């Protein structure tokens, strides 16, 4: 069975930031996870774009500093995350 987009989102974040899926919660941000640095942020952006078939603007990329903010942006593009 194909994973839902929200499951894919959690798996993607978990894999790139090397954190447990249980830790993929809205309040977690760049300041809380040592593996979420500028390089992994870029990888995150590119992977999200590729997996969900979207293109993010510069403002969106800069603003996506927490899991909750990333979800907000994806929701605004009609993606359940």
């Amino acid at each position, binding site marked *: 069975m194909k994973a839902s987009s929200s499951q894919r989102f959690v798996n993607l974040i978990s894999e790139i930031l090397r954190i447990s899926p249980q830790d993929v919660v809205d309040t977690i941000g760049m300041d809380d996870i040592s593996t979420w640095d500028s390089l992994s942020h*870029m990888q995150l952006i590119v992977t999200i774009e590729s997996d969900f078939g979207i*293109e993010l603007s510069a403002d969106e990329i800069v603003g996506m500093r927490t899991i909750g903010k990333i979800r907000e942006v994806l929701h605004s593009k009609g993606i359940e995350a």
Partner: protein
Amino acid sequence: MDPSGKLVIVSGGLGSIGSSLADSLAEIGARIAVLDIHEATSASPTPPHPIYHVDLADEHSVASVLEDLVRDLGEPAILVNCAGLIHSEPLVNITNPNQRHHSRETWDAVLRSNLTATFNLSSQVAERMVMKRIRGLVINFSSISAQGNPGQSAYAAAKAGVEALTKVWARELGPFGIRSVAIAPGFIATSSTEAALTKEAIADLKRRTPLMRLGTTEEIFSAVRFAIENDYLTGTTIAINGGLAL
């Protein structure tokens, strides 16, 4: 990438190789912006491209000139880092009682012109490419001297540094579709080569080069064009040196 209609920044675009590249890129349809610290002279006349004078080793000047350039011409898709300063000086010179070891001043000047300048301009152009989502290309000019040319501690170190930056940027910027390629020319038949080397030294270089001649600016352009057009090429150095090994 098809360079037609793309804006290409050529740093050192008034120099022998830079000006030739700028002209050749324009001939295949690219739009050119030349950056150079020098003014045009009779030896390097004003090119038929917009020219911006800037000290690339000064990051604030780079930011300012890029702002002007983008306002005038739009966002660059390709950066060719051709600016640099060739300098020869042995690590130890026992024949000079006043300066028996390599001058720190010239070391700094050569590193600034070749390595810091490349870093300053590339970092700011790459930032624009990432933020504007431009799948661009940075071409860095290294040199055969990066192999370890005796008598060129500073220049060789700077150019080896440029090759290292090329690899780092390929890995960091690759996910954004931005490529980074270095070109390492050997000895090229230009007025600056003639000015820097004696006729005997040039004859000796030709003898040591398997292809028995100096390279041409057209052959350098051919490598640049290949780097632009091959979208799977990144993180590598293209050596154009007639087979010469130092």
